[in-house]
C-alpha cells in the first residue's frame, strides 16, 4: 500500500535504530578483537591500528584449532545421523499406517520442549557406566536424540504435503518403499531438508551444556566449551576473548549470511506453521 514520505522515513528510522541495537554489541566485539591487547577495555572504540595478531594468538594459546575440529566432527555427525534416521521415520509417520504410529510420533515430539536438564543427569551416569563419557559418542548420540524430535516433525510435515498421485504412479511402475522415498519424495524435498540441516548444525555447534557435562578431555572440547574455559583463564583480556569469540561464532554466522532465508524461514516457520 502507499505510505507517505514522512511515514517511510519514520519506518526506516525505527528499523535502523533497532537494527543498530542488535548489531552494536557485535560491532563492539569486532572492534575489540582488532585492538592491541593492552588497550582493549571492552568498550566501543576505534583501534589506532588493526591488531590481527589477536586472532593468531587466541588460536594458538586457546587451541581453537582443536576445538573447531571437535565441533566439526560432532556437528557433521549429528546432522548426518539425524537426517538419515529422521528421513526414514518421517516417511513412515507421513505415509504409512501402522498401529500406534501417532502415539510414537507424539512421544518423540516430547524432545522439542524438554530442557536438557531433564535428561542429562541420568544420561551422564548411564554413559559413564558403559565407559562412553569422554568420547565423541557422548557428544553425538545425545544431541542426535535431541535433534530427532524437530527433524521428524519437520520432515513429516514436508512428506505429508507430497501429492499422492505421483507416489501412486511410481508404485504402479513397481517402485518399492525405499525407491519411492529416495527417488520420488526426497529430491523435491531438498529445500526443506537443507533448512533442517542448517538449523540442526546451528543448534549442535552452539550447544554448551552437553559438552560441558560429557567430556573432560581437552581434545574433545567443542568450540563453545573451549571458549568458556578460555574465558575463565583470560577473564580480562578482552581483545583476545573477542577474537576467540569471533572464531567460535564465525562458521555459523557465515552460514547464516549465505543462507539467511533458510534460517529465518526455518525458525519462524518451524514454530508458527507446525
Amino acid at each position, binding site marked *: 500500500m502507499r505510505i507517505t514520505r514522512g511515514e517511510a522515513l519514520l519506518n526506516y528510522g525505527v528499523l535502523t535504530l533497532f537494527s543498530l541495537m542488535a548489531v552494536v554489541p557485535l560491532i563492539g566485539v569486532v572492534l575489540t578483537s582488532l585492538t592491541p591487547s593492552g588497550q582493549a577495555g571492552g568498550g566501543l572504540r576505534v583501534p589506532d591500528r588493526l591488531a590481527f595478531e589477536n586472532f593468531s594468538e587466541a588460536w594458538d594459546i586457546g587451541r581453537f584449532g582443536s576445538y573447531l575440529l571437535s565441533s566439526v566432527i560432532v556437528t557433521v555427525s549429528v546432522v548426518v545421523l539425524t537426517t538419515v534416521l529422521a528421513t526414514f521415520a518421517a516417511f513412515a509417520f507421513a505415509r504409512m*499406517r501402522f498401529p500406534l504410529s*501417532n502415539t510414537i510420533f507424539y512421544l518423540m515430539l516430547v524432545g522439542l520442549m524438554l530442557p536438557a536438564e531433564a535428561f542429562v543427569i541420568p544420561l551422564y551416569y548411564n554413559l559413564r557406566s558403559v565407559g562412553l563419557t569422554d568420547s565423541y559418542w557422548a557428544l553425538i548420540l545425545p544431541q542426535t536424540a535431541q535433534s530427532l524430535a524437530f527433524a521428524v516433525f519437520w520432515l513429516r510435515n514436508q512428506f505429508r504435503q507430497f501429492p*499422492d498421485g505421483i507416489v*501412486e504412479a511410481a508404485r504402479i511402475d513397481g517402485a518399492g518403499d525405499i525407491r519411492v522415498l529416495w527417488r520420488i519424495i526426497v529430491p523435491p524435498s531438498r529445500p526443506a531438508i537443507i533448512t533442517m540441516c542448517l538449523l540442526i548444525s546451528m543448534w549442535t555447534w552452539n550447544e*554448551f551444556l552437553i559438552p560441558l557435562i560429557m567430556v573432560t578431555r581437552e581434545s574433545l572440547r567443542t568450540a563453545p566449551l573451549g571458549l568458556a574455559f578460555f574465558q575463565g583463564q583470560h577473564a580480562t583480556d578482552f581483545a583476545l576473548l573477542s577474537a576467540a569469540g569471533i572464531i567460535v*561464532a564465525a562458521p555459523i554466522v557465515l552460514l547464516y549470511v549465505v543462507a539467511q532465508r533458510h534460517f529465518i524461514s526455518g525458525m519462524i516457520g*518451524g514454530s508458527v506453521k507446525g
Partner: protein
Amino acid sequence: MVASAALVDGAAAVAPGGSVASAPTRGTRRRDWKGYLYVLPAFVVFAVFLGMPLLQTVWYSFWNWNGFGTATWAGLDNYTEIVSDPSILRSFGHSGVLIVFYSFVPVAVALMLTAILSRSPRLRGLGLFRTLLFLPQVIASVVVATSWIAIYSPDGLINQGLRAVGLEGVTRAWLGDFDTALPAIGLVGTWLGIGLCLVLFLSGVATIDGELFEAVRLDGAGLWREFFAITLPAIRGHIVIALTLTIVAALKTFDLVYVTTRGGPGSATTVPAFEAYNRAFNTREVGSASAIAVTLTVVILLITLAVSRLQPKEDPR
C-alpha cells in the same frame, strides 16, 4: 527455539492413532507393518538417549545419592526441599524476573514497533533489516555471554556511555553488583528477544491484505485504531508463539549464567537450570538436582500449555 512447534501441530493432526481397518484417507497410506522398521532406528536413539534418561530423572528425584556411593530412599524429601530451601526458591524467583526481561519487555517493544511498521510491510530493504535484527539468534550463547561480559566491564560499553552523558556516579561492575547482576543478565535476554519477536511479528503482518489498511484509513482511523482493529488480531498467533519461545528461553537460561556469573555474586543470579547442574555435578546432590530438573520441566510444560490456550483456533497463517 522450536518449543512450540509440537503444540501448534497438536491441533492440526487429528488422525487417530492405531485406528482399525478404516478406509485410508490417502491412497498411499496403507496399513503397513514395515512402518515399524522405518521408525525403529530413530526411536531406539530417542529412547536410549532421551526417553529413558527422562524417566530416570524422575526416579532419581526420589533418592538421595552423591553420584557414586549407595543411594538412600528419600521419598518426596527432595521436592519438599524445593519449597523449603530458600536458595532453590530464590532461583525460581530469579526465573520469574528473567521472564519479564526475556519475554514481556521484548514482546511489548516489538508490538509497539510493529504498530509503526505494519502500514508498510513491503518496505524496500526490509530484508536487510530482518537479517540484522535476527543475527543475534544464530550466535552461540557462550559467545554472546563473553561479549556482554566485556560490555558490562568497568571500562565497557555501558559505563563508557554513562560517562559520556555525565553519569559517572552510576557506573559500576554491573555483573558483580548484587543489585544489578540479575537485571544485567535479563537485559541480554531482552536484546536477544526484541529482534526475534519483531521478525516474527513482521512475518505475520506480511500476510495481512494491504487493502484492509486502506479501507480502515478511509474511515479516518489513526495508527492505534488501525493497530487494534487489524494488526493485533492478525498476528495473535504470532504473539502466542513469541511468548512461548521467549518464556521457555528464560526458564531454560543456563549458558549465560554459567559463563557470566556462575550464579554470583553470592546467589544473586542462580536459576533452576544452574542449580540442577551445580547440585548434580559439583555439590553431589544428585537426587535434589533431579527434583529441581523435574520441577523445571513441569513448569515449562505447564506454562507452554497455558500460553497455548491463548492461541486462536484457526491457523494464524
